[in-house]
């Protein structure tokens, strides 16, 4: 072998891809070309080799099923290979141009995790410094965060991150040495730096996942310049102020290649890694910083959870005036530091999921066993033992469920930061008070809740809280307060965001809604029905025009996200006193409470959350439009009635509605009646995805294993309700009363 160079082979391959269509023959020759390349490249198992291997796998996997895809994989590979083989001057960059092998990726992943945690605690400390003042401890901790990030990023050759972390570290160093107070501009810069660093980390994560090169955050260079500028303006110090050489050599952001994480040759790995083992501990003990001008706040002595008696230093003129009540300002004592760290083990999420799944199976098998007919003839002893088994397996299930949950703390923390930013931008003073951060939720839900929370917080700051002057005029303290809380209630988790702002203006909303044709005038709507109007999709843009009434920007996003997690939004508001947005979320995404119904011989599950009521219709309640379309009147409300049997093609179902049952369901403000044979039972089921291989089964939101081991399909009520469209109609629907059976 080795007669043709890799470069030539790649040429050949690229030509091949251009010339062939996605047919067998073309793919076969492409495949063999790839095979040759693989042999050629086997010697230097670098990135090119990985690309070839991937392409080979793609072709062999996809050939039969999707020739087009396979061809695309080959052409992508060819393009990538051409770049790889031509870009670096063949050797020069030799060891540096190594692929991001799995070991590096592992390090990057650890780095992401650690830095993410570090930045989160930095945020927390910054917020607490802003509200109760700096302490030596906090400043040192902040310094360590940036120092660690700089160290590890340096080792991973993430230049962009290094230079930003370095500049921030320099600033923190000045602060630590007492040459500059951490407030005003300095504080803002550090805040900004954590934000940009976090964005850079996110970008890095994406870059690694997509194995492309890191595109630095556009704000980063500017921020570094600002940091440098700020440092330059500080009174010069005689000795040890670091001269910041790194910044000057900072690469222009337009050369992304230099930012790709690369592994240095193995030798330096060992040496350069040693100085930074587990995060914080490494940094040399804080210099005896006797004089931190700002730390007039008492040292929060033994980290008591009670936020020190608020002897607010009020040092800087431009620091927000510490007005009015600031109960436990955003994590004043920093719960992360204050509470004893729980010991944790990192476990692959997949393993946890598969264990949860298996335990779910165990529960089902156990219940099958318990309900088996043979059991009645066995001894009491046997049944006792089975009872015990049941108990243990349910405990096991609870324990497994808890493994998936995390405290909402992280999401709340981000909101504290957001409040600060949005409040500043809007020229208002807003503080966020959080409670119940320890409430645990399914981790997937915590992540998905962040988006809606962002919208809600933004709205509350933007529109809810009035400008300081207006607040004073209304007899309220100038500083607005947002309260974000989480709690368990019944089988749900309640996330509540309250503000003490202007409240929703019912009249304005109604007026706008009538203008937009969402409601016909003259309809009497309850307050909560009116408030639900702000969730209407088109409403958001309209609300911007009447910015005083506010609320509505992105509110449809909130509602959609929350409902996608099978939760709902309840609004309470008093004009002039503020509003409360309450998200009622299920405990977990994995389990739903369903009503098992039967149609003919088949059984289906209807999510209990969507069910309004079930009833047996009388003759008078039924009417029809034309031959096929049936209507049902329940207590004066007319709604369409769908026969599940017709919809799903079930043959032996009951045809006379008066002998069957109607389950009234509701979604997106529409109510419909579903004609079923029987309601069998209410039960909690573990949702299984029903994605591959059964087509676009859009009437189902999933499947579940029923207590007898059979599969039951979960009806997608949104889709069923979506079958019905109205020409004109109040979009509001029901106000979703708090308590529902």
């Amino acid at each position: 072998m080795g007669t043709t160079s890799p470069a030539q082979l790649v040429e050949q391959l690229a030509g091949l891809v251009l010339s062939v269509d996605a047919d067998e023959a073309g793919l076969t020759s492409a495949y063999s070309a790839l095979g040759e390349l693989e042999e050629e490249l086997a010697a230097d198992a670098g990135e090119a080799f990985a690309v070839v291997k991937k392409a080979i796998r793609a072709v062999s996997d996809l050939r039969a099923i999707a020739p087009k895809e396979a061809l695309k994989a080959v052409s992508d590979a060819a393009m990538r290979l051409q770049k790889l083989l031509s870009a670096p001057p063949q050797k020069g960059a030799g060891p540096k141009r190594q692929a991001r092998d799995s070991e590096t990726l592992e390090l990057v992943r650890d780095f992401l995790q650690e830095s993410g945690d570090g930045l989160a605690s930095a945020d927390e400390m910054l917020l607490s410094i802003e509200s109760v003042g700096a302490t030596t401890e906090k400043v040192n901790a902040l310094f360590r965060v940036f120092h660690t990030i700089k160290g590890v990023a340096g080792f991973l050759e993430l230049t962009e991150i290094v230079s930003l972390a370095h500049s921030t570290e320099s600033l923190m160093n000045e602060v630590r040495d007492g040459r500059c107070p951490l407030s005003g501009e300095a504080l803002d810069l550090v805040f900004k730096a954590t934000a940009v660093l976090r964005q850079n980390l996110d970008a890095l994560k994406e870059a690694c996942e997509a194995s492309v090169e890191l595109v630095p955050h556009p704000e980063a260079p500017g921020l570094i310049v600002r940091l440098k500028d700020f440092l330059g303006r500080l009174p010069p110090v005689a000795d040890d102020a670091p001269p910041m050489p790194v910044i000057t050599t900072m690469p222009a952001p337009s050369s992304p290649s230099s930012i790709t994480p690369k592994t240095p040759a193995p030798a330096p790995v060992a040496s350069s890694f040693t100085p930074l083992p587990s995060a914080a501990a490494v940094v040399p003990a804080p210099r005896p910083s006797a004089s931190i001008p700002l730390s007039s706040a008492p040292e929060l002595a033994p980290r008591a959870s009670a936020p020190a008696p608020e002897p607010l230093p009020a040092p800087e003129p431009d620091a927000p005036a510490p007005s009015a009540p600031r109960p436990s300002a955003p994590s004043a004592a920093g719960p992360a530091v204050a509470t004893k760290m729980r010991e944790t083990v990192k476990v692959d999420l997949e393993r946890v999921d598969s264990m949860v799944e298996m335990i779910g199976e165990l529960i089902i098998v156990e219940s099958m066993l318990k309900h088996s007919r043979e059991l009645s003839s066995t001894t009491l002893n046997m049944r006792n033992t089975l009872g015990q088994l049941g108990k243990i397996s349910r405990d096991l299930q609870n324990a497994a469920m808890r493994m998936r949950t995390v405290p909402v703390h992280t999401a709340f923390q981000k909101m504290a930061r957001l409040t600060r930013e949005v409040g500043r931008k809007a020229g208002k003073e807003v503080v966020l008070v959080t409670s119940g951060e320890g409430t645990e939720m399914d981790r997937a839900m915590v992540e998905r809740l962040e988006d809606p929370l962002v919208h809600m917080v933004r709205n509350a700051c933007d529109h809810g809280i009035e400008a300081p002057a207006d607040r004073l005029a209304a007899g309220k303290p100038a500083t607005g307060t947002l309260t974000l809380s989480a709690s368990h209630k019944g089988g749900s988790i309640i996330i509540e965001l309250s503000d003490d702002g202007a409240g929703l203006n019912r009249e304005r909303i109604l007026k706008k809604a009538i203008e937009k044709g969402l409601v016909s005038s003259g309809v009497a709507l309850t307050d909560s029905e009116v408030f639900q109007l702000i969730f209407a999709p088109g409403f958001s843009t309209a609300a911007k025009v009447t910015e005083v009434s506010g609320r509505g920007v992105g509110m449809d996003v909130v509602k959609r996200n929350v409902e996608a997690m099978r939760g709902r939004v309840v609004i309470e508001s008093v004009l002039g006193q503020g509003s409360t947005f309450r998200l009622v979320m299920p405990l977990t995404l994995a389990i739903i409470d369903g009503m098992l119904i039967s149609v003919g011989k088949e059984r289906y599950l209807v999510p209990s959350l969507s069910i309004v009521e079930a009833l047996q219709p009388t003759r008078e309640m039924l009417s029809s439009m034309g031959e096929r379309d049936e209507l049902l009147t329940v207590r004066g409300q007319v709604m369409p009635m769908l026969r599940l049997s017709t919809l799903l093609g079930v043959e032996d179902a009951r045809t006379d509605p008066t002998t069957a049952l109607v389950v009234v369901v509701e979604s997106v403000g529409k109510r419909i009646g579903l004609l079923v044979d029987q309601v069998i039972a209410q039960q909690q089921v573990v949702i299984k995805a029903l994605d591959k291989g059964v087509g676009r089964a859009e009437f189902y939101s999933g499947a579940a294993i029923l207590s007898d081991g059979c599969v039951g399909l979960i009806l997608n009520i949104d889709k069923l309700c979506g079958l019905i469209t109205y020409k004109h109609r109040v979009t509001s629907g029901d106000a979703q009363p708090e308590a529902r059976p």
Partner: protein
Amino acid sequence: MDTHTTPAAVAPQLATLAGKYMTFRVGGEEYGLEILKVRELIGLLEITRVPHAPHGVRGVVNLRGKVIPVVDLRMHLGISSENAAARPVIIVVQLQTPTGPITTGVLVDQVLEVRNIASAQIEPPPSFGRDDEATRFILGIAKAEKRVILLIDIDLILASTNLSLVA
């Protein structure tokens, strides 16, 4: 598991079809399915019908907690459902697709054996001159002891049910 299939597997020349097959019966004929794709055999579980599923999909079953679709080979091979076995068997296969591996059950009348089929035994499937749904899924015909075993292209069969949902 890092090995990729040899280039030979890409070109479906008859020689490359040689290998180990699981043979089974559907209707009156004997069919063969590449053994490497077979995960396990299960006796018939209760199949839950999925209304509006693509043609050829019988429904879904509970495979130890996983919900997997079951395709009925009779529907794909154009065999009427008369004389279907009273106790059919589900062959669980796993295939690689662009969106990741798919596990699917294949409903057959009876599983026969696992046998080696040499390339000398295999002939190309004849074309009957029409665009026939059923013969499209046959990769080759193997002769074995006076019998004929039809080697089916399970990927194509499953892709056809999956494609019909994309359309």
